[in-house]
Every structure is written in structure tokens, then in C-alpha cells.
């Protein structure tokens, strides 16, 4: 019995209590938890207290101890994941390519070169002049892919940003303020999630006569806000019940302050993770829509549309399908790797390696 100390979550009433005759303990021993022998009581000394007792030694002039912030920590953990870093490098390269497409592309992506077609009028394979070959109209495939990256990234990032904006607003309103508004928003979300989203996107974009990049951004945003709303709603629900939010309310914080200082910072991690994964999905979604002709309209190059154009000729001119396909795959993979890496970096408990 004597070495049995109460565990943290023991049930009430079984905690030891001093007998009536117990002598008054010395002040520095004071509360004797567990069974009390003087030796044991003095053993209950904790290194932490050493700091407290040294209070006099804290000089006001002493240097304020700086610390590594959350972001430094996240970056440190992210860096350890080689695949995620590789994904990040690919994304950076893609972004650079898309931004500086004008300078990087060896040819004009829209020019139909006479030298780009064989004598029989067929597309040319990769050569030292057209590195990745030409397409059916004699346009340089590499240049078109480079400009296509621009389309994919713009749509991937903007459409996701749009979905994110809607998702965060609806998710926070539903999760934080609750009430009938929550019921309304979440039931609409359920309906949206039950909808076949690809069909919805087809219906939306086919009802517009000339779907361009911006229309696609809006369409994809409308299609993808529901999953984002659900994620944010769930996160807000769990955060608002945390004790630090209660503490903030108790210290007199207004709802606005609680939202901006206590809830939003905790949403950053899930938002970043879901966005990076969402961009991958969106790039694929854009490619699919363009493939069936409802996405970016020719002559603007888009990877999905290029696959669709080249598909009938994949036996005679496989590069028309292979290179855009590779581009989509590498981009999606890169965003997924980064998303996974970020998720692990933000959540130290979930380490796999």
C-alpha cells in the first residue's frame, strides 16, 4: 500500500487521507499526497521548483529567451521528408515555368510551323528543333506544355482559393455560431456532396457558351466548396470546445477576437494541407473537363485538351498523349507529396518514419 500513488484519473473517494491523529506536516512538505512517510514526502521534490526558487536570480536585464516558432518547426520536420521536398521542388519549377513561360518556351505555342509537319502532313516526333515533337497542326509540343502549365496552375490555385474562401466562411459560420444557420449550411453541404460533382461541372460549364479559364475557376470553386466546408466545420467544432477557447471567453475576448486569435491560427494547418491536396484534384478535374471539351477552349493550350486531341493518333504519334499525361501525373503527384508532407509536418504525433 505504501508505494501506491494515486493515478491521474482515479475515481473519487479512493484517495488516501491522513488519519485524524496525523501530525501537522511541516510547511515545505505540506500536502502529502499518497501515503505519507517523511522520507517519501521529502522525495516529492521536483526539478521544476528549482527554477521557481531561483526567482531572485532572474535579472530584469537578462536576455529574453527567443524560441523557434511554429513555422520553423514545421519547416524543420517538412525538410526531413525527402519525397515532400522533391514535390516542393517540382512545384517551384512548375510555378517558375508558368510565370516565365514567355521566356522559357522555345517557340510560340500557337504558331503552326510549316516545318513542324512531315511531307505527308503528319506531326513530327521529338527532334533537336522541336524537343518534344509537334502536334497535329505543326505546333511545338514543349511550348504548348509550358503554356499549359500556366493554365493548370492558375485554375488549380484560383479555383481552390475560391472553394477555400467559401468553405472557410461557411465552415466557420456553421461551426462557431451554430444554431439554425449551421443546420442550413451543413444540410446544403450534404446535398452538394451527394451530387455527382463531375456531372454538375459538366452541366454548369456546358450552359455557358464559351467557357474560359475564369468560368472554370468559378465552376470548380462551386463544385469543391462543400468538402472544404465540411472539413473546416469539423475543425472549428473541435477547436471551439477546447479549454483555451473557454479561457479566452472568460478573460473577456469578443467573438471576433476568439475567431481571429484563437480559432483561425488552428485552422491554418488543415487549410494548407487540404489546399495542397485539393490543387492536385483540381488540376486533374480541369484536365478531365478540357478532355471532354468543356474546359479551356482552343487554341489556348491545356494538358487535358492536348491529350484529347492526340488520343486518336496514339499509335502513330504517342508523344502527343504521353508528354501531357506525364505533366499531369507529375504535377498531381508533386502536390500530393507536398500535401502529405505538410500534414505530417504539422502533426508531430503522426510521424511514420
Amino acid at each position, binding site marked *: 500500500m505504501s508505494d501506491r500513488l494515486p493515478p491521474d484519473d482515479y475515481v473519487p473517494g479512493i484517495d488516501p487521507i491522513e488519519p485524524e491523529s496525523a501530525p501537522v506536516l511541516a510547511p515545505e512538505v*505540506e500536502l502529502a499526497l499518497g501515503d505519507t512517510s517523511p522520507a517519501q514526502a521529502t522525495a516529492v521534490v521536483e526539478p521544476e521548483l528549482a527554477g521557481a526558487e531561483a526567482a531572485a536570480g532572474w535579472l530584469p536585464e537578462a536576455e529574453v529567451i527567443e524560441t523557434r516558432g511554429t513555422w520553423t518547426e514545421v519547416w524543420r520536420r517538412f525538410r526531413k521528408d525527402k519525397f515532400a521536398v522533391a514535390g516542393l521542388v517540382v512545384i517551384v519549377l512548375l510555378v517558375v515555368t508558368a510565370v516565365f513561360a514567355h521566356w522559357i518556351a522555345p517557340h510560340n505555342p500557337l504558331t503552326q510551323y510549316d516545318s513542324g509537319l512531315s511531307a505527308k502532313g503528319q506531326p513530327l516526333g521529338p527532334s533537336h528543333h522541336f524537343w518534344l515533337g509537334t502536334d497535329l497542326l505543326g505546333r511545338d509540343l514543349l511550348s504548348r506544355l509550358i503554356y499549359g502549365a500556366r493554365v493548370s496552375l492558375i485554375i488549380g490555385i484560383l479555383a481552390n482559393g475560391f472553394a477555400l474562401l467559401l468553405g472557410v466562411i461557411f465552415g466557420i459560420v456553421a461551426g462557431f455560431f451554430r444554431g439554425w444557420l449551421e443546420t442550413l449550411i451543413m444540410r446544403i453541404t450534404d446535398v452538394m456532396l451527394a451530387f455527382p460533382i463531375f456531372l454538375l461541372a459538366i452541366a454548369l460549364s456546358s450552359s455557358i457558351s464559351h467557357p474560359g479559364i475564369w468560368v472554370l475557376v468559378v465552376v470548380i470553386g462551386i463544385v469543391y466548396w462543400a468538402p472544404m466546408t465540411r472539413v473546416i466545420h469539423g475543425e472549428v467544432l473541435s477547436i471551439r470546445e477546447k479549454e483555451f477557447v473557454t479561457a479566452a471567453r472568460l478573460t473577456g475576448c469578443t467573438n471576433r477576437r476568439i475567431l481571429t486569435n484563437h480559432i483561425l491560427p488552428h485552422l491554418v494547418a488543415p487549410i494548407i494541407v487540404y489546399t495542397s491536396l485539393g490543387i492536385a484534384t483540381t488540376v486533374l478535374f480541369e484536365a478531365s473537363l478540357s478532355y471532354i471539351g468543356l474546359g479551356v477552349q482552343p487554341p489556348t493550350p491545356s494538358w487535358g485538351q492536348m491529350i484529347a486531341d492526340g488520343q486518336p493518333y496514339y499509335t502513330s504519334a504517342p508523344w502527343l498523349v504521353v508528354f501531357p499525361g506525364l505533366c499531369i501525373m507529375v504535377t498531381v503527384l508533386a502536390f500530393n507529396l507536398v500535401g502529405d508532407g505538410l500534414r505530417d509536418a504539422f502533426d508531430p504525433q503522426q510521424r511514420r518514419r
Partner: protein
Amino acid sequence: MAATAATLPSPGAAPDDVLVGIRDLKVHFPITSGVVIQRRIGAVRAVDGLSFDVMRGETLGLVGESGCGKSTTGRAILQLEKLTAGHVHYEGVDLARLSGGALRRQRRRMQMIFQDPYASLNSRMTLGHIVGEPLLVHKLRARDERVDRVKELLNLVGINPNTVNRYPHEFSGGQRQRIGIARALAVEPNFIVCDEPISALDVSIRAQIINLLQELQRRFDLTYLFIAHDLSVVRHISDRVAVMYLGRVVELAANAELYGEPLHPYTQALLSAVPIPDPVVEERRRPVVLTGDVPSPASPPPGCHFHTRCPAMQQGLCDVDDPVLTEIRPGHFAACHLVTATDYPKIRSAEDTAASTVAAPRPDDSAAERGTS
């Protein structure tokens, strides 16, 4: 229906000694069914008719089993739960009537220390921001004085003030609890609800936090409502103790009175389940073993909530009438039909108090069933 709504004066206490007055407090959580249209099909009566006063400068211990409504009571007093019925008066102001800015201003006087030091600090804020936020919100200090005040507060609770730019994850559980205490002190409160402040801490750190709380109480004339399920801690820190069972207070008395001569059968059972750190005494005594489980607060039994498990239960009285929390002796309140000024059901075995006789081992002693679930 429930405990008395009348005032419960303490012996010799003037009315203005009452800091927090709780009258007929009820907090019921609805049980609903249905997805789109929610129907109310019942209620969990977490707190079901509480009345007691917290005196200025005292530490009132609130003990009871898990799920008896202790924490809900603490949260309801601070208006963190919506009251189903009843009033909470703080220095005469009915808090339940306040809202918005008025409530925020009133909350400056009341703070809370939380159970889980890992959940009660925002992991994305530095110490300076955590402890400084209350100052900012209530405009207690000018911008340039704020950091100094934060350092002062940290120093007060035994945290190196030069760590203001650090994050909570760099501190141990005990240190985090100290930081939580500093945050609570920032608004210069009078009344602090300590919601099991040491339950989540390592045993070796508990005493330190208790000592810190006592020292702060002396320095700043704080009043504590100390919620715990640890009877020895409550005994150590409290001036008076209230025992809760299934959403109600069954006994309320000064520390020595309650631990010395508990009147209510439940309190007796609870105290007898506490092991005595003396093997000789522990060998002899027989704890009162309650049978059965705590009834569900969603459907509490009629009459006295405790009658289903009470060894002294009287048919036709205890299972019909609600006992009222009444002052049996000066300052000693109990809610039991069988307790009178001169007599009360003694369900504790004699061996408990008088260690002179050796108890014959009972057959069910080996069952190791304690008085509580």
C-alpha cells in the same frame, strides 16, 4: 422540488460576506433526436437544483464522483453553460441576466483554472500573448507597460519571466498550469473556479500547485471554488466542503465538521472509502460498500437521488420526497430525511473511528469494491 431556495447563511456571516450566491441552479442538457428537425426527447440533469453561498475569502471545496455535475456547476457559475433555471449572484448582481459587454466586464472578477494544462493554453500563442491578452482586452495596461506586467505575473507564479517569447509546448505540465494561473490572475479577479486543477498533473507537482494557489489566495484575498474528486486535497485546501451526488448538494459543512462527523449517508460512504495510510488501521476498518451504480442523470430516481443505494433508506419516505438541504447544526447542512439535530444514520462501521476493536473479516471484503464507482 429540489434543494431549498432559501438563503443559507453561514454562522456569524453577514450577508455582504457572501461573494457568490447560487440559488436553485439547474443545468439540463437536452437529448435530441432527428437530423434536420431536432426533437427534444429528454434531458441530462447535470445540475439539478443547487443552492449554496461562497463566502468572501474562503475556499469552498466541491467534491463528488465523476459525472455528478461538479464541473458543470463551476462552468454554470461562470456563465459558460446556459442555465436552465436558477440564479447566480455575484456581489448581488444576477449574472444570468447579463449578456454581451456587461457580462464580459463582470467576468473580469471571475476566472477559472482548468484541469488540462495541455488544452488550456493556445499552442499558437507565445506566453507573452497568452498572459497579455486579458490585459489587452480589458485595457488594463498601456501598450508599453504590458510586457512588464506579463513578466511580473509570470514571476508571481514561478515562471522565468524571460520566457515571454516562448510557446506553451516548451513547458512541462506543471509549468503550463502555472502559466494558466498567471493568465487567470491577469485580470485581477476576486473569485477563481479551480476545476480539478491538479488532477492532470504528475503527483510530484500537485503539492507545488496547491501551495502556489494557497500563497496567491493569501496575497490577493482570492476566493476559490475548488472542484476536485480527491478528498485529501480538498481537505487540505478547503475551509468548507460541499459534497455533490447526482446533480445536487447532499452535505455542506466546514472542513473539520464534514470530515470529522459526516451526517449524510453518502458522505459517510465516500469518506470510508478513502484508505488510511496506516496498515494497522486500514486492516481493521471496514469500508461501507455501496451496492449498485450511480443512476443515470438523464432519469434520476424520484425522491432522494441517493435512495437507490442508501443503506439507511426508508420505504415510503426517501423514495417519495425530495430531501431539502437544511441547516442541521450551525453551519452544517445536509439533505437527508433521516438526519436530525440530535441523530443521524450511522452507516460507518465502528471500527473506522475507534480503532480499539478488531473487525471480523467480512465475506465481501475481498471484492475490493469501493464506495464509489
